[in-house]
């Protein structure tokens, strides 16, 4: 199990953590650990599986576009409304 405290390697931030700061993908910060852990889990191989918005379920997306990221990140609510930047930050790392 990896929590937010374990995402960074020593002093070096995980690329998602860096992207969240760069893209201002947080405001109050309270949901941020959850957003980051979900994003990290999502990027660790989840593109091999379809999501609800994948048009053809027999063809996993392989690469997560913004629509796939949004659907897969929908389990983490953000009340400050940082979603736009959260998706940008994750897309930066997803490549």
């Amino acid at each position, binding site marked *: 199990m990896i929590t937010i405290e374990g995402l960074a390697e020593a002093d070096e931030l995980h690329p998602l953590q860096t992207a969240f700061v760069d893209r*201002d993908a947080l405001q109050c910060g309270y949901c941020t650990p959850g957003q980051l852990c979900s994003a990290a889990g999502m990027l660790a191989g989840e593109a091999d599986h379809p999501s609800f918005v994948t048009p053809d379920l027999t063809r996993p997306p392989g690469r997560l576009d913004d629509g796939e990221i949004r659907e897969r990140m929908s389990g983490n609510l953000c009340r400050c409304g940082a*979603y736009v930047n959260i998706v940008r930050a994750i897309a930066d790392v997803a490549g």
Partner: protein
Amino acid sequence: MATALRTPAIGGSLSRVDGRLKVTGQALYAAEHQIPGVAHAALVGSAIAAGAVIGVDATAALALPGVLAVISYENAPRLARVDDAELAVLQSPAVAYRGQLVAAVVAESLETAREAAELVRIEYDARGHDVALRPDHPRIYQPEKVNPAYPADTALGDADAALAGADAIVVDETYETPAVHNNPLEPHASLAVWTGGDLTVYESTQGAAGTRDALAELFELEPRAVRVVSPHVGGGFGSKGKARPQIVVAAVAARVVGRPVKLALTRREMFALTGYRTPTIQRVRLAADHQGVLLAIVHDVLEQTSTLTEFAEQTATATRMMYAAPNRRTSHRLLALDVPTPSWMRAPGECPGMYALESALDELAVACRIDPIDLRIRNEPEFEPESGKEWSSRNLVACLRQGAARFGWADRDPTPAVRRDGSWLIGTGVASSTYPTYRSGSRAAVEAAVDGRFTVSVCGADIGTGARTVLTQIAADALDVPTDLIDVELGDSALPRGPVAGGSMGTGSWGGAVVRACEALVDKLAELRGIVPPDGVEAIADTAEEVAGLPKLARHAFGAQFAEVRVNPATGEVRVPRLLGMFAAGRIINPKTARSQFIGGMTMGLSMALFEQSLLDLEFGDYLNHDFAQYHVPSCADVIDIDAAWIDEHDDQLNPMGSKGIGEIGIVGTAAAIANAVHHATGLRVRRLPITPDRLIV
């Protein structure tokens, strides 16, 4: 007052200075502070909506191992009387609403406290409750003033005559907004520690100083004997703008058990105890000539408060200043019900009021066959309509025009329900935004240390706004040093007093004081010929006089919001593929964090348009859908493309930075833009928020 700052930092997109703390889980929120020996509290809320507690049987609860105390009005320490009756917790057997605190349990563990809370037996004497807001209620009254101190009613000219004019095009519609709850993700939480007679509370608050004062008053202590510490706040949106009942419970409980006590509200408790936006019923009447020039505006508002204490939201105040019209009338009426007390929620007043006004404007544009942007431009006032004051700056028209260009409004066919993409109808809508530019006097201190660093301190709060970051930039420029030499301390009542993080006035108020403190420090350093003594050197400023002496001008931020929607008429589903906000808010101190503030507000506006409603249960008198599974806020999938931009606005009549507040304007007008777009897509005019599928399936 136009101070010519050299500003290499202001205007730059400095990343959040507390970003690293927040992405590594190191930022401590109230309940996360570790204090040895802490005990835990759990609450018992009233099971009735009106009446009184006549008996508290704590036997079973106290018998549970680990329970330290059960506190109710029968045994609670007496508190001093304060204005805010919500804070007189456990002082009386009276019950004003369902869920009001009737007892608290303190135990060794949270689990035990919660289990014991279920075992406390409360006997009630219930009387029939009255919780329905309805326009024909006999007890509707006119409040003396509306939040914070506006007159309840205003009238200019003869609106009725204008509305009755033979040639007038008239819109006369009623719009309804539901109760909605702020619902910051971090619950209201308090960790109270008594040391001798002194009280320290780790708290989630937008205003540590005001909270400290409230506690001092309640416990009859000198303010300096109370300290409220709140370095990071997991959102508030107004609900943490003042002390809430849980901080009083924590402090009382800590005193009773002689140990530190921690209390975080549950999401369900937040629906009763932490305020919410009042539901409104708003009748808007507009009369215009055939060119769309307004002849009259009438805006009559009905809203609710509790029987415990009055909160009167200023729903129609934006209508007093938005558009020119020779005849105008606004009114606010209130009904005190057996319901939880409403309070501030992001842009109280402007947010629900502008939904109604800007929807009515759209209806008028349709009736007059005039483009809704043109209609607004034709009614642009030269001076602030009711006061006659000059504008410090007003760039609504620029926002409308530049926003229209960016959004691609030019070729819009106004005909409703004719654009289709498969099963989906497509429409676009526009609405104006506005929010007053308040500024409060503030104190601030800045200290130079021998290591070349500077520490800025002010009792402000960064509730996610980026205050810590923009104050870093402001101080850097005022001191003419790089931002990485600045440390900013906020969120502690021991710091120089600043106003609440509310009313979009934090940056202007705290920042203004920081600039003055920095100027004073620069002077001191000059006297010292630039040599910082070993103990450092500090300067303190207080802008109370400066702010009181500001010329009487109409100071407001403006904006224009554009929405594109897709509506599936068979299923009632609404999607918002695009939202654009174009704002005029003075100097933008940090484009990166400012954009987050705007789009955050717009996201909450989208939420207001489509999702949010707190459902009052008439039989039981409480808000029924009291969790995030039932109370819907947007998920990530609902927010597709929200963008914010701004015009370059120079206004030297505000504060040393030339900035207007931006925390609230983003939510103003969004819901109207979306509702107007839904009409454009479908031909259906939904005058009751939120626009859920059931309201579009006919």
